[in-house]
């Protein structure tokens, strides 16, 4: 079976849980930016948690099904419509052959995950079906969807009922204004003054328009003041430059000391900007659901708190699993 793409949406890509193992040659993990929502969508339709789905950002695609399927939409509040009739998000529903799936305007969040029973069956490249658009790798022909594409869908093994839903408290979405992102100071933290470091964590930042799968840029906080230095050979003359180094996922670089950028799943693997620290793994999903202009605060945490948060996040997915079992 296949899904015909009538309208592609803004930047809809095929994603699964990613492609580890190639970061040392510049090929990033990729995969869903909100992995919790991606897993939830798959579980609702009876797929493996890491099956390939569609990630739609800000705006949904319009799709025509050539066969019957079970579908679920999770993540952002991007209400699905089946032949024009509304369907619930975070809930599985049947689609009949020939029916059209479209979407209403975005109500909340940023990225919706559209899972289809059987999973999107594009070729596995280096162990994953995820799209890495910058490298024209994986996904559907290495790029975002276009009108006229025909997406292959795998055979559905499981037979699960339609109408199963995921409770609100198991969805793991950002809550509270401003959104709090927990981060561990480190990496090149010593490059900025103590006052600048305090300001970074006490200021309220806003998501800038330049926010995509590579990274999220933030603006509105005070510029960071640097500790004076003699530029090391190879680093470059700007105080925010370093000898080009690796960038961790979630690392917070601040070019010129003005606008922090948090690298995400399609991260550039390295470069010459200093970093003040790293957003903890448990909060990376939240970033994927932030719209431009959303107020954000970075909250300083240590390793113990990061590991506790990681444990909590894994616990949430475990609860979600058992709620569907």
């Amino acid at each position: 079976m296949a899904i015909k793409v009538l309208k592609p949406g803004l930047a809809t890509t095929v994603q699964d849980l990613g492609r580890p193992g190639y970061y040392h040659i510049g090929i990033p993990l990729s995969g869903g930016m909100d992995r919790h929502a991606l897993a939830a969508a798959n579980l609702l339709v009876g797929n493996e948690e890491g099956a390939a789905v569609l990630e739609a950002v800000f705006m949904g695609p319009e799709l025509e099904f050539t066969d019957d399927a079970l579908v679920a939409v999770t993540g952002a509040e991007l209400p699905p419509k089946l032949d024009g009739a509304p369907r619930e998000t975070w809930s599985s529903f049947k689609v009949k052959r020939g029916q059209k799936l479209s979407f209403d305007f975005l109500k909340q969040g940023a990225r919706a995950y559209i899972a289809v029973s059987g999973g999107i069956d594009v070729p596995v490249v280096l162990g994953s079906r995820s799209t890495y658009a910058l490298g024209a790798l994986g996904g559907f022909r290495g790029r975002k969807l276009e009108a006229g594409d025909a997406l292959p869908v795998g055979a559905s093994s499981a037979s699960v009922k339609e109408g199963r839903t995921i409770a609100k408290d198991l969805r793991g979405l950002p809550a509270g204004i401003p959104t709090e992102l927990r981060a561990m100071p480190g990496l090149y933290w010593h490059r900025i003054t103590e006052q600048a470091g305090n300001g970074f964590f006490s200021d309220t930042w806003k998501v800038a328009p330049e926010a995509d799968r590579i990274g999220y840029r933030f603006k509105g906080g005070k510029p960071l003041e640097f500790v004076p230095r003699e530029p090391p050979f190879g680093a470059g003359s700007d105080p925010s430059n370093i000898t080009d180094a690796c960038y961790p996922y979630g690392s917070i670089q601040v070019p010129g000391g003005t606008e922090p950028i948090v690298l995400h799943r399609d991260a550039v693997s390295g470069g010459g900007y200093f970093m003040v620290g790293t957003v903890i793994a448990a909060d990376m999903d939240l970033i994927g659901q932030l719209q431009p202009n959303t107020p954000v605060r970075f909250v300083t945490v240590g390793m113990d708190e990061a590991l506790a948060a990681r444990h909590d996040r894994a616990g949430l997915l475990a609860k979600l699993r058992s709620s569907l079992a």
Partner: protein
Amino acid sequence: MQTRFSFGGDEHIFAEVDESMSLEAFFKSLFITNAVRDAKIKGVTEICPANASYQVKFDPDQIKPDDLLTELKRLDRAAEKSEPVIKTRIFEIPVLYNDPWTHETLMRFRERHQDPNCTDIEYAARINNLDGIDGFIKAHSSAPWFVSMVGFVAGLPFLYQMVERQRQIQAPKYLRPRTDTPKLTVGHGGCFGCIYSVRGAGGYQMFGITPMPIYDPSQKISYLRDFMCLFRPGDIVKWKPIDRAAYDAAVVDVDAGRFAPVIRDVSFSLTEFNRDIDAYNRKLEGVLHGH
């Protein structure tokens, strides 16, 4: 050199071997990352060497962050004692310097450059006290370069010239990054050279272009069938200046699947290299040309 360690969140350990770039710092990061790979530590998922630093990604559900840190510190101390010799590969990469495609692009972004009244190669020649374009090409292509890091985007090599620090070409990045760079541009920023593996944004000075693809996700290029990225950290590159006719012929050969890059296995000793750099580089060139 005292390696500085830092946690990058709960999934990475970042290690800065030295603040400054040097072959010694690069070798140490390459040695340690090789040792980490060989140690097959449970829970380690990515091992990334960089110019003068490295990074290890891990799953803290499988190994405690402090335990991994202890292990890396042990490997770091062991690397100090090891003889700086590697078995690697040397590549000859043809370059059409001062080519029409990077020229068209650099003219489009002239207002973002330090010197809008000359080209990137003329500017780099002047600030490095080299004798015009020809003098620059000679300085750029006469000694080999180490692939000191692969990344930024898929398969992009950072290159570090194998000459004394005072002879190294240095050039600042553009004042504001370009939104476009031709694929396979030979670029330079700070003390690092690079080859842009894909078309896209970039801030490095642009000196020329190679006809030889270095990244092919479709794996149709004959020499990229085994793996889609050509370079690994530790590889050695020697530029070969070519003219337009040779460039066009190479493009035809690549498209026809008969382009055979010159690649040789070689052993490199940092100690011997430092003893007489020019003599050692001549020896490397000899390996490339089979004598």
